[in-house]
């Protein structure tokens, strides 16, 4: 108790130094928490939109499809798979797709692109395709000869709602397939390349023209609990047997996730440089404050204070400053994380020009908003790390001071 009192009075008797130390450490804590929150929030958003725009969280394909994406390697009994999936309650929704390519033609233009069959109502539960509608209407299960077209592709084909175009493609039985389609709706996602090359039709109609009844290239699923996705993936795989392959976004979007990890690492490197300097300065202040008291510490030792108790006293000082600054910085960081989760940071210049440009260039989802993530356990962990850093700053002075014998310390000038 007396050691605590001494530590506290020592801090109070050097107010300016204590305040500078406190502010530096509080600032670092807030910066650390917010930088992590922003990093996680932005990455999660990017991954979420990349997944949800079209690829989906989980997918089933024929095991041979990845090696050989041809029409011999399809899911040939969609109804049966769907039935199995319905029994697995961790699966929230599923939808079958048939992806193929077609040459779209108008009188003026012929452009190659993705030509995909979807189950309109089910699809709405596994991707953002329906929500990406910008003009006209989304597909329904009773549609025939209607196409839901990417806005950029429509621009290139020079077609609008109600216009007709034709497609030429290969059916599931390798037969030649062609028909006329009326543009029913246009969609625009944040993926330029996707909007520039995709068209969707109702699978019921598609199956007639392409001879693909009960056949699909992919079945897309969304899990009830995203946290459990790896477990669910294994469970579905087990239920379906070896002929089909179940993968989740961690595999299908491996590159993107790795890219986000690299981005995180670069963020840490920059933060690291900041922190080295900040904690050097905090350490220097701690060092000076200890050195100014060498005589006093010598006296304390002479009259029976053990080296451990001296260390304890210095640690208490660091702890008091640490608690205050980490608490203060933690609160500020948590507030900022919470605020920018609800109101993401917007970089307006990106909104105006670059989002599209960026998307075109990098084939990545372009976001002009940067949300943070308010994650209390993560914030607590960040605060703990900062607390440890704070304590580490007194280690060097403690080691130095304990090298002195009491007489050396008392005589120290």
């Amino acid at each position, binding site marked *: 108790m007396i050691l605590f009192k001494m530590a506290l009075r020592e801090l109070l008797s050097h107010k300016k*130094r204590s305040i*500078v130390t406190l502010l*530096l450490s509080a600032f670092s804590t807030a910066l650390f928490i917010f930088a992590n929150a922003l990093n996680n929030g932005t990455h999660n958003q990017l991954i979420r939109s990349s997944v949800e725009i079209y690829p989906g969280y989980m997918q089933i394909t024929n095991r041979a499809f990845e*090696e*050989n*994406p*041809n*029409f*011999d390697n399809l899911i040939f009994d969609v109804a049966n798979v769907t039935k199995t999936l319905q029994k697995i309650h961790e699966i929230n929704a599923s939808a079958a797709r048939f992806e193929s*390519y077609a*040459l779209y*033609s108008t*009188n*003026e*233009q*012929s*452009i*190659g*692109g*993705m030509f995909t069959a979807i189950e309109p109502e089910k699809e709405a539960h596994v991707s953002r395709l329906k929500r990406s509608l910008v003009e006209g209407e989304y597909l329904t299960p009773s549609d025939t000869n209607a196409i839901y077209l990417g806005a950029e592709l429509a621009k*290139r084909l020079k077609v609008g709602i109600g216009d007709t175009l034709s497609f030429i493609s290969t059916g599931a039985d390798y037969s030649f397939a062609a028909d006329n389609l009326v543009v029913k709706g246009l969609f625009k996602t944040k993926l330029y*390349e996707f909007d*520039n*090359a995709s068209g969707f039709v109702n699978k019921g109609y598609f199956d007639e023209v392409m001879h693909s009844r009960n056949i699909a290239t992919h079945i897309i699923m969304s899990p009830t609990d995203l946290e459990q996705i790896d477990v669910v993936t294994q469970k579905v795989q087990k239920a379906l047997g070896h002929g089909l392959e179940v993968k989740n976004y961690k595999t299908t979007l491996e*590159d*993107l996730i*790795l*890219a986000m*990890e*690299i981005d995180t690492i670069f963020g840490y*490197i*920059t933060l*690291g*440089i*900041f922190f*080295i*300097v*900040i904690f*050097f*300065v905090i*350490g*220097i*202040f701690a*060092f*000076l404050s200890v*050195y*100014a008291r060498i005589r006093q510490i010598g006296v304390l030792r002479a009259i029976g204070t053990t080296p451990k108790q001296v260390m304890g006293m210095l640690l208490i000082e660091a702890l008091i400053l640490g608690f205050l600054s980490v608490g203060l910085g933690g609160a500020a960081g948590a507030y900022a994380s919470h605020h920018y989760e609800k109101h993401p940071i917007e970089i307006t*210049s990106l909104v105006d*020009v*670059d989002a599209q*440009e*960026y998307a075109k*260039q*990098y*084939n*990545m989802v372009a976001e002009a908003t940067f949300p943070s993530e308010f994650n209390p356990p993560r914030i607590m962990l960040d605060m703990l790390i900062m607390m440890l850093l704070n304590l580490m700053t007194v280690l060097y002075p403690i080691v*130095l001071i304990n090298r002195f014998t009491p007489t050396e310390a008392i005589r120290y*000038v």
Partner: protein
Amino acid sequence: MFSHTEMLYVKMALLHIVRRKGRAALISIMIAISMIGLLLMEGMYEGMMVQITQNSIKTGSGTVSIQHKMFRSDNNIKYTIANPYKITALLDSKKEVESYVMRINQRGLIATAGYSQGVNVMGIDLEKESSHAKLENFIIKGNYNFNKNGRGALIGYRLAKKLKVDIGKKVIVTMQDTNNEVVSVALKITGILKTNNMAIDSNGLLMDIERLRGLNGIQGVTEISILLHEQNDDTQLIHSLVPKINDQNIAVYSYKELYPSLHEGEAMMQTYSRISSSFIFIVATLGIFGVVLVSVFERVREFGIMMAIGTQFHDIARLIIYESLVITMSGYIVGALLGGGLLWYFKEFGLDLSGLSDAFAIFGMDSSIHAILKREYFTSAFISVLVATLAATIIPIRTLKQRNPIQSISEQP
């Protein structure tokens, strides 16, 4: 250079530093580490930016690009430069121009037996590209040729992976000709490219320009891509070219317009590193200030004695400044040597991160990052350290003056 008394002050400064080597070392190490960190950050980040920019510029539209003014918004082959030789004659006379090539860019559909997708078809002249973009350096598999019959094609590595094609395999490329008729050609893959320009890696097919002309019937070219000796001469060249070309339909673009995100990325990186440096500068100044203040205050008596025997106050101020400069500059020298050495190493040999190359490619980066080493990194750091040191000594010196050192001789130690 130094007078006799001045040498004495330097000597005193050095001796005092040796006596208090612990804190002097802390400051030096702090400056050295932050220097190394900042140098690496600036040099590596700038290296990355240059790499991303160069990858896009070289294999893409060049530093300056000449196109039909409609081609950028509507990649239709009816928007061509009908008489490119009139323009290239102009370019031949420009000494800023390092090299230029003519290309035809067209969207098409690429197909293998079971898979097809959209593709950017680029008609190029292999020989000219070799002295321009040095495309042969980007070949990761196969050879840099189109076979003797001109029926070969180079393909982006991501596209090759997606299509599951390899050297010697055939692909069918379908596109429109100038009469809006669909034309197809079978090409044999002769080489696979990894340029880290996504437009080529994920979506690009390069074929012989004459063969492409034979297919689509284009007379001119869609683009003249120009590289300059000095990247910053772009505006100057554009200003001198536009009136001479004197054609309303022809537009001359700088890479800054064609890739605004790159340009913005550069600007953002610069602002970012400027903010980081000034922040570190302020924090470091605080640390130096703390040390100078303590080392001045604990020697008030010593300074008093010096003044009592005839030293003028400004000489004492000079002593304090010398002392601080010796400490900080030794940190600067160590930091500059180590940081500069590391940067030089990474400039010459690159930082190899090939394990992560696919993820880096998403950002348009190579797996090996080559740092940039500029003299201004060191001069600006030198000025910063100098200013920080002087700023940190102002308050201690002023406070010392107010304390009136001579009086302090009689005070209790």
